[in-house]
Every structure is written in C-alpha cells, then in structure tokens.
C-alpha cells in the first residue's frame, strides 16, 4: 500500500510542513525519482535505490554486515521489498531484531529481495515483533511478489503476530534466511 509509506495516518489530518521536510508531497516527489510520473508513490522506486533521505528525524543506520548495503531505517532498504509495517530499526530493534520487551513471532511471511551488493535474490523472513502497542515510527509498505491471503506465506496483510503470547503488533523485521533458489516467487 504505497500511500502508507511515509504517510502516518493521522497525519492525513491537519497536516503541518512548517518546520521540516515533512510534506507528503515532498516525500512523494522524492520517491518518484526513477519511476513514471503517473504513479507518484511507486514503492518499487525505493527498491531501485533511488529513494530519498528517509524518515525525517530518524538517524541513519547500517547493519554493519559486509555485503549488506543501505540504511535499515529507510523503506528503500533492499531487505524490505515485501514488508508492511513499522520498521523495527526505528523502534528499538534492528533490521533483524525486535525491540526490548517484545516477542519475535516464529511465524512469518516471506519475501524474495534482490541484494544490490551481490546481485542475488535472498529469502527474507519478515518476523513481526509482538506484545507492545504499534511503534508508530517508519511505516513502510512494499509489495514485491506479495500475494493475497489465500497464499498467505507471501501475504503481508495478515497479522503475523501468531504463536506469540500476545497477537498485538509492534513492528516488523527483515531477517535473511538465505539465497533464493531461483528468481521466481516461492
């Protein structure tokens, strides 16, 4: 749901852009780089690495791993190609760990994302972190290879806080499981 990215909801209510780069239009413009002007919000533009400077007031990070380029606090980060939710990297966790006090869901949906560093497709497991109220920071939605609920293992609309003590959703990670067998959907 590309209209989600950067748009944090209530934000759609009386919206300020006074002091910072918080205008939705600005954000949209930023993401429009490299994609057709007719789809101002195209999420895939982010995956292409042409994304902008990320969420205002969120300090950049790296995963620290060689061969893992990009900033895990940005929606454009390569692992997030099918993510839907708040980035744990902005919430007290990292790209592959949950914030303190939450529980990582053992059940997840799966994405297949291209790592620009080695040109390989990786299987990414979007383990949700559960048990505290929505983080509310760095809302990001991308839908590469996302399928509807009837192929649920690649569906990101499902609340994947399952098998956890609480089903309350806090934020989402993108954990590397390994290189994909082929380029196709799992």
């Amino acid at each position, binding site marked *: *749901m*590309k*209209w*989600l990215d950067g*748009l*944090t*909801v*209530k*934000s*759609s*209510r*009386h*919206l300020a852009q006074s002091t910072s780069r918080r205008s*939705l239009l600005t954000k949209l413009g930023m993401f429009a780089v490299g*994609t*057709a002007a*007719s*789809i*101002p*919000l*195209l*999420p*895939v533009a982010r*995956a292409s690495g042409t994304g902008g400077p990320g969420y205002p007031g969120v300090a950049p990070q790296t995963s620290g791993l060689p061969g893992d380029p990009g900033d895990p606090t940005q929606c454009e980060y390569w692992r997030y*190609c*099918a993510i839907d*939710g*708040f980035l744990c990297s902005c919430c007290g966790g990292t790209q592959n760990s949950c914030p303190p006090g939450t529980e990582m869901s053992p*059940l997840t949906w799966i994405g297949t994302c291209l790592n620009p560093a080695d040109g390989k497709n990786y299987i990414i497991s979007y383990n949700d972190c559960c*048990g*505290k*109220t*929505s983080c*509310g920071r760095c*809302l990001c*939605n*991308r*839908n*590469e*290879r*996302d*399928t*509807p*609920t*009837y*192929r*649920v293992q690649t569906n990101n*609309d*499902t*609340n994947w*806080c*399952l098998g956890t*003590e*609480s*089903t*309350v*959703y806090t934020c989402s990670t993108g954990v590397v499981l390994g290189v994909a067998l082929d380029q*196709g*959907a799992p």
Partner: protein
Amino acid sequence: MKNKAFGCIYSLCIGAVALAQTVNAELAAENIPNVERLSAPYSENLLYVHDGDFESIVAGKVVLLDVAASSHNYKGALDAAQFPSFIASKRKDELYVAETFYSRGTRGERTDVLTIYDKYSLKPVAEIPLPGGKRGMTVTHRYTMQLIDDDKYLLLFNFTPAASIMLIDLQSREILNEVFIPGCSLAYPTGERGFSSLCGNGSMFSAQFDKKGRVTHQEKLQPFFSVAKDPLFDKPVYVGANAYFPSYKGQLYPVDLSGKTPQPKTPWSLLSAEEETANWRPGGWQIATVDDEGLIYVLMHKDGLDGSHKGGGSEVWVYEPSTQKRLKKITLRNWGVSVEVTGGKTQYLVVTNADMQLDVYKANSGEWLKMIGDVAAMPFSLHAIR
C-alpha cells in the same frame, strides 16, 4: 462525594441555573445528560467507515457516516479492537464486530468475542464468546466476516495459521460448526447457506450447511487461475450471486456462486490493447465495488508492475458485467486507495484518498462534490448499505 471542594460545582451550577431563570438570560439552561440516538431508517447514503488505524490497532473503530447530509455527516462510531471484522445486518437492527481483547490492553489473557450492537443506540447488546483464540486477524477486510441466509447465520474467518470458517447462528447466538480450509482463505457467501474460499493453488473450496449447521456438501474445485502468473485479488464484488474477482493484471474473473458448486466463468479483460501496453492495472485496498444497477467500479493505475497492486489509482473505471463493456472512466480529483458506492436514489462514489480523507463524487457523472475530513485515521474499508 467526600470532597467539599466539589460540592461547589453543584452549588455553583444550581446557583447559576437559578440565576439564569431570573435575569432574563438569552439562553436557557440545557438538559443534562443528553445523548443522541440514531433514527430509523438509516439514511440510504450511510457508509460504514472502518478505520484500519495502524498506529493504535488495539483501539480501532467503525464510523457511521452520512455522505449526503449537508451537515452532521458523522453519525457516531463503534469501537472495534485488534484487527477486527465488521458487518451490518440488512434484515435486523444489528451491527456485528468480531474483535479481540487482552486483559492488560496489549498483553495478558486473550478474549475473542463477537459483539452485537443495536443499530440505533450504538450500544453493545450482546456478546458471543469466540473460543480457542483463533480469530483471523488481517488488515480490515470485508470477507473475514459475512452474513448468509437472510442474515440468520454469520461466517467468521479463523487463522492460527490453521485456517477455518466458523458458522454462527445469530438467532440462538451459538457457534454451530467450524470447517477447516487448509491452504484457503476467507468466506464468500455461496448458494443457499454456504461459502467458498480462494485457495493458494488457484482453486476454490466450497461448503454448504443445513439449518443446524451440519455440512451437507463440500468440495475443492480444480484450479481456475494462476497465482504465479496473475493472482486474483481476494476482494471480489457481487452482482447478484455472481462474484467478480479482478486480477492483478486487469482480468475480471466471474464466478457464479448461486449454487452449491462454484462455477468459474470465462474471464474477460478490463483493458484495451493500448491500456494493457501502458500497464493499466487495478490497485489499492478496497479496489472495486458495485452500484445498485450492478455496474462494477474498479480503481485503476497506470504503469503497474510487480508490487503496485496495493498502490491505489488515479481513475475509476465503470463496467457493465452483462455486456463486458466499460461505460466510463472517472478521473479522480485525488489519488484513490479504496472505493465504495452508496445506495439509494442518488448514488455517491466515495473514495479514500492518499491523505486518508474521503472524497465524495456523484456516481453517475463522476463529478467531485466534496471532501469529508478526518473521519478515521485510516479509512481502509467502506461499507455501503446495499
């Protein structure tokens, strides 16, 4: 009240009220308490706006909105917690919310219930406990909960991740049955008293119940679409007993759900050759809807590609399914995300825009009429009365 300081509120109020009656005040003292009640019948232009608020999923709501009224559009709201499901009865004065609570808000003991509201007081009047902690939770989706057989029975989707459909008798308020649907999802009303589900291999599962909730028929169809090449959206629109499923790439798949066995019909394209070249595709959250005449409205975007299917669109295209003809294109004033058409004499196309505000258009002309603001944080699902 033990607190002397507070007595003064009342003595003050009483003093002030008494005074108001003696000093020729312009405005008389007003009645307390004073709570509104909705009047029957509902406006035909009423829309249930289901808030999919990500920021506070445990504290969501469904807003009742009269999109045609010149003032007081916002009629009231129901609470709906933790990826809830909502549906309104058309036959009874009841509204249904399936929801989940924790004893400590976000943690503690889990309780799932079906809450039944009175349509006019908007107060909960009954609750059916949902055992097993298995209620399916997804971003607000109409087909997680459906009514069948003149609203006498309710279908509810479970997901643990074992998927099943529960059948609830709304008269006795009992759970009658639970049918497991491995590899399939959601409940599309089918036949006299049954449902179908789409399945991960491109097929459909279907079941029928008798009045006691016993399964009288169930079957799994042969695959009729390719999930790998062109998945169907799991959000069809119904014209009578025919469900129309748009596909990611702009085909429309009719499935006749009038009998016990679903009958997939030949799909047809929503697109001209040029439109296909320009990669026009359906996209958004509630991507399609239907009006009183059975015309189908689909939210469309150009330059579609893998991953653009939830991105919303700039235009709404209107089709007559009987002739497979497109009747018109409505260019939206603002980028759209979800669409619905209200019923009644004048039908309104309501579009959740990218700013999460509701744009109201005349459905027949496509003319933009107004924006209704701040109805919900994330008005993802819009339910007209139809």
